[in-house]
């Protein structure tokens, strides 16, 4: 099985700097208030370098790459 990665935003850490959307517009856009909306799902191979750059350049370490996971059960 190939390792598929997806981008996850920590909503509390994120303070809307917007660098990730500038670096990876293919997968990230900003909402009406400047906070990133990430297209869900695993990243294609050709975007991996840019995705890693978006992760490294986030000034508050709010966006990370994570192994694309199966949906967990959620509780309130």
């Amino acid at each position, binding site marked *: 099985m190939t390792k598929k990665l997806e981008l996850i935003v920590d909503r509390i850490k994120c303070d809307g700097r917007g660098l990730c*959307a*500038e*670096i*990876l*517009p*293919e997968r990230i*856009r900003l909402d009406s208030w400047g906070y990133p909306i990430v297209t869900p799902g695993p990243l294609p191979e050709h975007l991996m370098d840019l995705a890693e750059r978006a992760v490294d350049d986030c000034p508050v370490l709010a966006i990370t790459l994570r192994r694309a996971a199966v949906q967990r059960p959620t509780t309130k």
Partner: protein
Amino acid sequence: MESKDTIHDRVRARDAAMRLLNRLTAGAAFSAVVGVGLLGAIGAYTVPGTASTSTSTASSSSSTGSSSGLQTSTTPVHRSSSSGVAVSGGS
């Protein structure tokens, strides 16, 4: 939803900015290397202990032996002149 066009525009802007970043970085590196040479050369004309007003750096450096250089460093000469003309310190 967002149209493909604006994503395309943003991808293009990203690529242009990436190129600009590379050019600026390369430019800075080049300027820095030149700067080391330039500022070093300026130093060569202004530093106490390089006894030369000649335009030839080669002659100025050959004329300052290491012994005279050592002297300037152990007994620094206080210069108030800003003329850029070096005087031979301590000799």
